[in-house]
Every structure is written in C-alpha cells, then in structure tokens.
C-alpha cells in the first residue's frame, strides 16, 4: 500500500476508536445534565438516603431511592456470592481438570446459557422459581429479593466462567511446574498457585458479573415483585433498573418524577462505571512488576 493509503487506513482506525470514546463522553454528559438537576431539587441526602419512594403521589411525592439502591446492591452482591464461586470452580475445571472433549462440551453449553435472552430467564423465573419459592418457604408471594438473586446468579454465571477461564489459561505453565516440583498435587497447585496468579483477571470476572447484575432489568422485573420496600430477602423489592423500567412510561414529560428517574439512571451509570474501574485500580495497586 502507498504511504498515503497507509496513513488514510490508520486515520480511519483512529476515527472509529474515537467514535466509541465520543459516545461514552456523550452518554456521561447526558446523564450528568439530565440527572443532576432533579437530585439538587430533591436534595442529595433526601434522594440517596430517603427511605420512601412514592413518586406517584401527586400531592406529596417522595423520591428517596435508598430502598431501590439497596435492593440493587443486595441483589448484585447476592448473585455474585452465588455465581462467583460456582463460576470460578467451573472455570478451573474447564481450564485445568477437564479432559479436552468434556471441556469443549461444557464450554459450548455455558455459551448457550449466555445466549438465553433475559426475558426468557425472567419467564422461567416467574413460572417455575417464584411458585416454587412460595410453596417451599410458605410465603404469601414468591416474588422476592431471593428470586431476583437466583435469576441474576444464573444470568451472570456464563460471563464469569468465560472471563475467569481466560484469566486461568493465561497463567504461565512455569508457575505450575514450580509447584509440582515442590511436591504439590494438582489440586493444591490449582488452588494455591493458579487461582492466585490469575488474580486480576479473576477480579475482572467478578466485577463484570456484578456490573451485569446491577444493570439487568427485564428478568428481575418479572420476579422481584416491584414494591419499593426496604429490601428483605423474602420480601418484594424494587431495584434501580426495574424502577426506571416500570415508571418511565407513566411519568409526565419534564415532570420532577421523570427527571428523578433520569437521576436513577445517573446513579446506575456511576455504579457500573465503578464496578468496571475496580479491577484496573486493583491491578495498579497489586505491585506486580
């Protein structure tokens, strides 16, 4: 290729990369400009720490998102608490313990699980999981934080497995060889050398999982019950995402209610950005040269 052609090609690549960055900046600008005014109007403290969300009350609406925020955090943390150990062990199995054929088969199935649309997960949760919880735990209704946690755990499992397996596969064989040479068995080596050595990649998998769980709306909407209670494990909850999804259509354009929902969008955005930044920050502090 000619020099000019070479330069043009590289310019196109740069512009494409720039477009992605520009979109993110636009998104950030949008959320800041649309989300901040309502928070100022409601008051930071009342908005973030207010325990009552009652936006439909025309006379005296209350815009405290603490129940939604906590439900989102609990939901994501609970899902991660279930999916991360399961996902890590699955990844370890795939990356090290499994015979090649079995690994390929399980990997394919995990990918299939990743491809199940969120609304289908919700549907199964609604028709199978929720009635089961109601019967089994003898609840008035099975729609609950617990149901949301279980559905979210299933949904974030595939990306956690996939990312963790990549991280484990990237661990140099020399580390494991050193461990074997010291008289370690395979399991001892995998748990004490391979997993820790994959540290930052594993952390990225965890963060991605939590980020996905925080951001998921559709499936959760179908199983969580959607009452804006302060969250309890077996009670009905509303999350940040489901709050927006449920109410936005009912909020009058330009009303404080609609703008408060945009502010929830800002909070979600910040949460997800934080989750994504976490592994990078940890890596920088990790002290590996």
């Amino acid at each position, binding site marked *: 290729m000619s020099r000019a052609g070479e330069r043009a090609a590289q310019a196109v690549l740069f512009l494409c990369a720039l477009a992605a960055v520009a979109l993110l900046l636009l998104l950030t600008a949008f959320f800041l400009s649309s989300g901040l005014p309502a928070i100022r109007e409601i008051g930071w403290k009342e908005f973030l720490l207010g325990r009552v969300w009652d936006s439909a009350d025309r006379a005296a609406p209350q815009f405290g998102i603490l129940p939604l925020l906590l439900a989102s955090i609990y939901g994501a943390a609970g899902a991660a608490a279930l999916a991360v150990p399961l996902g890590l062990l699955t990844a370890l199995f795939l990356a090290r313990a499994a015979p090649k054929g079995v690994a390929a088969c399980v990997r394919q199935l995990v990918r299939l699980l990743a491809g199940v649309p969120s609304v289908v997960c919700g549907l199964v949760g609604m028709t199978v999981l929720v009635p089961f919880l109601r019967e089994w735990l003898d609840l008035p209704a099975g729609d609950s934080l617990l149901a949301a946690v279980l559905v979210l755990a299933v949904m974030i499992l595939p990306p956690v497995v996939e990312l963790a397996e990549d991280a484990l596969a990237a661990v140099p064989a020399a580390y494991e060889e050193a461990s074997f*040479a*010291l008289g*370690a068995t395979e399991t001892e080596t995998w748990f004490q050398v391979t997993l820790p050595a994959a540290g930052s990649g594993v952390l990225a998998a965890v963060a991605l999982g939590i980020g996905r769980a925080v951001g998921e709306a559709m499936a959760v909407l179908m199983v969580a019950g959607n009452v804006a209670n302060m969250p309890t494990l077996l009670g009905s909850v509303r999350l940040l995402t489901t709050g927006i999804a449920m109410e936005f259509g009912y909020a009058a354009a330009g009303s404080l209610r609609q703008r408060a929902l945009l502010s929830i969008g800002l909070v979600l955005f910040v949460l997800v950005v934080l989750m994504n930044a976490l592994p990078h920050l940890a890596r920088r502090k990790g*002290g590996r040269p």
Partner: protein
Amino acid sequence: MSEQIILSARGLDFYYGPAQALRSIHLDIPAKKVTALIGPSGCGKSTFLRCLNRMNDLIPGARAEGSLTFHGEEIYQKGRDVAALRRRIGMVFQKPNLFPMSIYDNVAYGPRLHGIRSRSALDETVERSLRAAAIWEEVANRLKRPALGLSGGQQQRLCIARALAVEPEVLLMDEATSALDPISTGRIETLLGTLKDRYTIVLVTHNMRQAARVSSRTAFFLNGEVVERGPTERLFSMPRDRRTEAYLTGCLG
C-alpha cells in the same frame, strides 16, 4: 573410595509418543556429590533429569521403560506417590520461575504445603533456606516484597532456597545458570560447592567449564545414549570415547 549410589538407571528407555528420547541408559548417581550431565542440545540429558522427579509426566504421551531407582525403589512404579517423590527430589529450572508472591511466601510455599503452619517454624525454615542459598543478606529486610522484583541471579538463588525449604535429598538443576550473567553464575557455582556436602546434586549444563569446575562425576549424553561416564577429572583430561573427545574439543554439537 566407596560411595553410596542414590539414583540408578538400568536400561532406561524413554519415549515422547512414538519418538524415543533415551536409549538404554545405564547410569549411577552417587549420594552427596555433584554429577554433571553434558552433551549437545536434544541429546536427552534434560529428559533424563526430568525422569528422576517424573516431571516428564506432565507431557502427554511420555512413557518410560526399564529400571530407574531411587534408594533402590522404582521411580516409575505403578501407584508411586509422585508428589512425595518430588518432595525428596527438588528441582531448579532453566529460567527462574518464582510465584507472583512475596519472597517469604515463595520460600514458605513448600513447607506450608507439607503441613507446617506455625509461624515461628516457618520463619525459621525460611531464614535457614535463604541462608543456605546465600541470599539471606540481600533479602532479609524485604521478605514481604514481591519476589519478581529481584534480579535474575537473585531470583534463581531464591528458587534454590525455595527448593531447599522442603528439605529434599536430591537437587536437580536443569541448566540453572544458562540465563544468568557470569557474576550470578559464579555465585551459584560457589553455592553448589557449599551444598554438595548435604545434598546430592545432578546438574545439566551446556557450559563445559562449569561441569569441570563444580562436578565430581560427569556423564556425556549423545543422541539419547550415555556415551561415557566417569570421574569428571578423568573424563575431561582423558576421554575414552572418540565422540566425547570430539565434543569436549568443540568438534561436535
């Protein structure tokens, strides 16, 4: 001069899949001596070394035939506890392969693995191993720092300390100085001099002068066979086989 034989190969054949890497090896390794294995690349000396602690097991399709014993017991016996074998026969690799952990945790890894939990016992083992590997003075005040921050030569001595921490009887060194500068190499050779009274050392090296300097016995490998073996001094000054002589004078390999 009577010497105790600790490792002994009798008609050892070794295969990587269909390819034969070792042909009918007969070789005795005396206890508490340094034995050097020399020969051109691909001659089988590293393969033989990795038979001794069964590190070759990690390669799919690898298999051994014939007899290879450690204290008279077959190394490749069915049902042999390989982890226990490797605890008694330690290994230092060509490239330093420290774990991405602190200096202390690297050395304590083996002892912890084998059940030592008490803080004071671990501290003691770590210090003793670091002293034995002649690196204590350099790292004593930064035991909690990442091991991978050390220089190449220091890393390799730390690898030796880590191997010594599980108190092996035999130390296998697979071209352990080939990635190091001459000064670091010299330090490790001096260190071997102090270790040979307590440990049996088997050393694979491409560096003929190193073999001459540190070993008391030498075996010359060529094309998967042991061409000649004997006391280092004799083998280097009066090689009996034409091929040994050719290799030593640089006409082969």
